[in-house]
């Protein structure tokens, strides 16, 4: 009977793990799927002006923020409004009013606005903000490109040096300890470091460049370790044969060892891309949270996960954040499957 109980406990653990995965995926899907439109992906965030007729705003539905420049009307039931063509559009929970019955709201105070809004039929000019993540997608791609451009050469060459030249000894142990320690440091500390080193000391400010460089440092340990393993997996006899035939060490490395380790290196790159996409703690400090298309790598711009975080924290917009989450999860699933396929294909030669 004790055996049966143990099996029960083990299967329960498995069930809990599965339940967690399914819940997270299902929740993100359910919350986010509605927002997954082509418009969302292909546009940057922008504001749209609409002319609407609104009827029957109740007194408890009006609230104000930042009275000096604009108003927000929070209408929890989402007033139905008629636009110019007499078509019904649903206003979101919060929207910005520019004019009421033709008069700009900047000249009215709270009392006047309430009075105007509570009248039966009101003509409003409203600004609706639409979130589009094209700028975030571009920023993410830029970050991936620049981060890999810096970390791949440094990482791969370091791995080559460690495996092909050093192999053992005190220096090897020291370098390895440094690499392993770097690997365990939480990303927020990298964020602090990047802020100090790249943004302030190097004068790059809050920019994609600053963020990418910091991410590059964060990636170093992973790339070095994975490349090391790929290099170590190449049979020693290949190297010995090459050297015995008269090739120099460099020729052996670049013509024999590396081509055979290419599979593992590509897998390392794909996994690194996955990590870059998921990274937010570093980028939020070094690359900023600006929701605009970056003109260059010296601009500050939010990446996908940073935008999702801001949407959740500052706006409580879980739906849109989940849409971004859905996109990111899908990309990561594709990356994982690709990495697996490449690993299989290259291992056939081993």
């Amino acid at each position, binding site marked *: 009977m004790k055996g049966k109980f143990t099996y029960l406990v083990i299967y329960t653990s498995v069930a809990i793990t599965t339940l967690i995965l399914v819940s997270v995926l299902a929740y993100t899907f359910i919350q986010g799927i509605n927002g997954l439109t082509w418009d969302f992906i292909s546009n940057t965030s922008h504001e749209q002006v609409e002319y609407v007729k609104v009827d029957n705003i109740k007194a408890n539905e009006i609230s104000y923020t930042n009275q000096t420049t604009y108003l927000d009307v929070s209408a929890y039931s989402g007033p139905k409004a008629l636009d110019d063509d007499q078509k019904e559009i649903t206003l979101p929970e919060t929207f910005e009013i520019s004019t009421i019955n033709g008069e700009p709201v900047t000249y009215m105070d709270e009392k006047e606005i309430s009075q105007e809004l509570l009248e039966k039929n009101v003509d409003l000019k409203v600004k609706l903000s639409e979130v589009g993540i094209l700028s975030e997608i571009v920023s993410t791609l830029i970050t991936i490109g620049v981060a890999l451009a810096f970390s791949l050469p440094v990482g791969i060459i370091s791995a080559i040096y460690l495996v092909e030249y050093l192999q053992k000894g005190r220096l090897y142990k*020291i370098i390895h300890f440094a690499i392993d320690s770097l690997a365990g440091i939480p990303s927020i500390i990298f964020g602090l470091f990047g802020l100090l080193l790249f943004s302030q000391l190097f004068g790059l400010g809050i920019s994609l460049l600053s963020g990418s460089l910091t991410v590059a440092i964060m990636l170093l340990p992973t790339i070095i370790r994975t490349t090391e393993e790929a290099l170590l997996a190449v049979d020693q006899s290949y190297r010995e044969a090459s050297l015995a035939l008269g090739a120099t060490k460099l020729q052996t490395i670049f013509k024999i060892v590396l081509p055979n380790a290419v599979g593992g290196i590509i897998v390392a790159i794909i996994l690194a891309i996955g990590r870059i996409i998921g990274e937010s703690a570093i980028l939020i400090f070094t690359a900023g949270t600006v929701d605009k298309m970056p003109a260059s790598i010296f601009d500050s711009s939010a990446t996908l996960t940073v935008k999702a975080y801001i949407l959740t924290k500052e706006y409580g917009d879980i739906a849109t954040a989940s849409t971004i*989450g859905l996109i990111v999860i899908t990309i990561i699933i594709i990356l994982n499957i690709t990495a697996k396929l490449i690993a299989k294909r290259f291992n056939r030669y081993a």
Partner: protein
Amino acid sequence: MKSLEKKVEFIFKLITILSVLFLMLITIFLIVRGLSPFIGDKTNTSIIGFLTGSSWQPSQDVYGIGYMIISTISATLGAMIIAIPIGVLTALAIVEVLPKKLAKMMNMAVELLAGIPSVIYGIFGLGLIVPLIAKYSPQVQGQSLLAVILVLTIMILPTIIAISVTAIKAVPQSYKEASLGLGATAMYTNFKVILPAAKSGILTAIILAIGRAVGETMAIILVAGNVAGGIPNSVFDQVRPLTANIALEMSYASGVHQSMLFTTGLILFVFILCLNIIIYKIINRQKEL
């Protein structure tokens, strides 16, 4: 030809030392910036006061991270208590108990969980876990120590499972065969032979998971509540873990305030370094065996 080889080797060596350089730079930066408020007369808080204080009011020169340290430790402990049994048992199931196809699927599921960005777990926590807790909590809000524990558990589970799977797989097949050959049942073998043999690997998994839990930022900010003081008395109290403190105020802090955030980072950094040294010792001990 020989001189080219020597030059290239030298360049490679320099590039490799970059990694060590970065680690040193991070350490130096953190130490210099982090200790700067305590040198000289910039603040009334002493180092002991900083470490044990239970209130954080930068505008009044009050910097106490004591309650944050307790928050981080309680959250991590709570997550450990839940995640270690589930994680190790699931790992055991994947390697020894589940049929091959199911084991493969579980492995893929765990890899997927490991790859999901932390923000998404934070969104899940805020959207699902926090309202759930708010329903049953004696307090009015759902953001709480419990929420942080649950989110952290979900996040460290894949780490524990993945590394434990590697550790359990590494146990020589002969151990299992010998035990079964002597008449032990499969379950007995699992718990008395295989798991003890995988002990150091599982321990590494646990310590790496602790590191991850202590360092997690984005997800827990959304569910922690982030109060400015007060030691949590119950799991339903709001908390402010160390990482949340840094992340929340970094964007607008300056001067002594900003340096204090670096000091918080320094504490985290030192803690994680110690964990790494422990792992190193465990791995080296196992290699000697």
